């Protein structure tokens, strides 16, 4: 342990759930990472059923992950930030994100709220809530730019 405190955005980890989320989180975090001269890390977790058939094919969700990552890379390249991607498999999305943060010793876990209809969380599970409760490192919630995609962020199509 050093006494020196690192800035929150010098090694932030952005968990990205879907393309809209990737767009919002990366756009919101990029200027702050640039300001700190930080190195961005993004993680996407493919949820596994752990011994039962999954809700969607792994290969299918790997394609989704690739789309999410390429979006993130696009934002990073434009902003001139170094970015590393991490694709994980886990039965618990929250735990997998925390593991990813641990592995890179992230300075913060950063996301934007996705808002909307919390009762759906009954089925999809509230990962963010779990992150806030269980994380041993800072969790930063950035306001998403609400002008363009606020509906799609909720993911209802």
């Amino acid at each position: 342990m050093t006494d020196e405190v690192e800035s929150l955005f010098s090694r932030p980890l952005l968990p990205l759930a879907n393309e809209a989320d990737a767009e919002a989180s990366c756009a919101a975090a990029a200027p702050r990472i640039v300001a700190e001269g930080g190195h961005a890390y993004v993680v996407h977790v493919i949820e596994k059923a752990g011994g039962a058939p999954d809700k969607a094919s792994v290969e299918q969700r790997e394609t989704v992950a690739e789309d999410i990552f390429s979006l993130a890379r696009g934002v990073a390249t434009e902003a001139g930030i170094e970015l590393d991607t991490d694709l994980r498999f886990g039965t618990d999305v929250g735990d997998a994100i925390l593991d990813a943060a641990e592995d890179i010793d992230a300075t913060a876990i950063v996301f934007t709220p996705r808002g909307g209809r919390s009762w759906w969380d009954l089925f999809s599970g509230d990962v963010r809530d779990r992150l806030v409760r269980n994380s041993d490192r800072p969790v930063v919630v950035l306001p998403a730019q609400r002008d363009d995609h606020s509906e799609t962020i909720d993911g209802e199509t």
Partner: protein
Amino acid sequence: MTDEELAKDLGPLAALTIGIGTMIGAGIFVLPGAAVKEAGPLAAGAFVLGGTIAIFTAASASELGTAMPKSGGAYYYINHALGPLFGSVAGWGNWMGLAFASAFYMTGFGQYVVTFLPVPSLSIAGITISGVKIVALAGGALFVFINYVGAKETGKLQNAIVLILLAILAVFTVFGLLNADLAKLRPFVPPDKGISPLLPVTGLVFVSYLGFVQITSVAEEIKNPGKNLPRAVLGSVIIVTAVYALVLVTVLAAVDNSLVAGNETAVVDVARHLIGPVGAGAMLFGGLLATASSANASILASSRINFAMGRDQIVSSELNEIHPRFGTPYRSIGITGGFILLFILLADVGTLANAGSVLHLIIYGLLNVSLIVMRVSDPEDYQPDYRVPLYPFTPIIGAITSFALIAFFANTIVLLAVGFVVFAMIWYAVYARGKATKQGILGKYILSRSEQIPDAAVSATTSVQPDGGYRVIVPLANPESEADLIKLAGSVAKARNGTLVGVHIEQVPDQTALESAREEFDFAEADELLEQARIDADELGVPIETHTILSHRSFEEVFDAAETYNADLMVMGWGPDSHGAPGRAESAIEEMTHSLSYDVLVLKDRGFDPSRVLVPTAGGPDSDLSASVANVMQEFYDSEVTLLHVADDKQEGEAFLREWAEERGLGDAKLVVETGDVERAIESHAADCSLLFIGATERGLLSRLVRGALVLNVVDDVECSVLLAEQSRKRSLRERLFGSD
């Protein structure tokens, strides 16, 4: 644990219970009544016969599954082996077969519910919907919803459900055995009908043997598939057949036939008779669990099949969009759900069972044929861990019995099956053929031996080959030339309403396995290059797909990729370090470039500027390609095109060139005829132009270029960019079949 281990987390028991769970619901809880009514105790024989037919196909499915543990299972194997025409039949058959089967399971579920919960029938606009169907619709909607939102707890319940069911049935059988009286089994064969009901009843109960093939649809998730997949597939068929036969025989030995025959929930009444109300309750509970788990597993499996179909462009890949919140293929599940509800409404329980069976029998037959095709053509990457015993007898018997059983269904059902196959083939011809790109092993095999195989077969094969529109493949190696290549290739693709295929070959050192390279390598640079290509193609308004290919080879892989992605045209850059050093084996390149099935444009890039294009021509096929590209340049970039012809006689030359230009739609081009040395003429006119086209004057331009044996001083002497064109060699075959196009 590695990612690989995490991604493949279905153990042997889980894989086995997918099979058993999907099958056991129908056979023992819904069908005994109808089967015994038709065939008496012989019904047990029908179950055994059904299981025997299934086991042959199960062996074939196991071998194919261990060779290709991919999502989509049976559909994938058939599409891979027999090509997308049969792929379309298999995909649609498996999808709709599962929807019919799910509707059947749900109707069975309804029959169980109404025994304890009287649901009134409903009349809307003169149409009466029975209570059973109302429950079936509600149940169907519930399981579709569960899969739509992807509640992950349901998957884990499957193991428990199957174990509970087996336990209930074991207890039930023991009670049956204690009361068994073998005399009740006689006459085993109904005296009035004889053995004739055996095959029709086998057809009826065959819906009990659909589950094992659903195991293959989640093959990519199975741990150690080489071992666990065959065990689960074969094991589930054997266990289920044994359970069906044993339960039915003990039931019929323990009670009078009349208690079972025509009774929709026969096992409940038999249990009440043998064990009392507790037994009846347990069997009722079992019936609900079994039909529910069958339907749930079927809905899940059908979304995998949709995904695999979308991957091969048999259906729109939009069908397979993943829900941003639930992470489920919600559209696929929603549409499958719609079909299930529709089928429940439209058909009675017998028709649903028959439709589900007959569609699966088509798939089973095709699966066995696929296995034979794979064995005969023996492609290099076909390395199954499990091989069917007694090949070729096993798949041949499997194919014949599966197809033959179809004949014993009612005429309307056979008609439905035929109509369905016709529909799927028309679907392929009208919708999918223009989009699908993946060629089957069978098609490749026939076309590669076109000399030895009768023309009619070659012609038939060619006419059903996928034809994913006009496809222009662009191998991308470095960022400097990327934009120019995309501009050039994009304009040609756009002129033909085609698609760009950007590929980047990542060369992996020989000592590194490709699989581990996939995990360890950093692909950021490749991703950026391909991302840029996507942006540039978007600007041109041309659809593009991009692929990163890992290979131990570099240059040679380009040609393989062009074949794989079904290219009509390859546009590549040529420079000192464009595509790595060509491999050591020159003969291999000779071989590859000897039979080009696509046109090739090679750009010696000195800055892509199509404003002033020079096309020297002496006639001949390769200058045709130059002419058509010049046409595109004219249309797309307003290029000023100059045609140059070097002739001995100026007047004759002018006449030739005028005619040549008119025929190729270049009548408005500037025509220049020179006499004397060809190279000097080209060089002097090239000084005024920005892009020089060179058609290969003889065959083998590309291979000589690759070997560095091409001594075309012109290319080095001029200052503008040079485009070398070489036309496909396969033209002659295609011309023979279709005339020129």
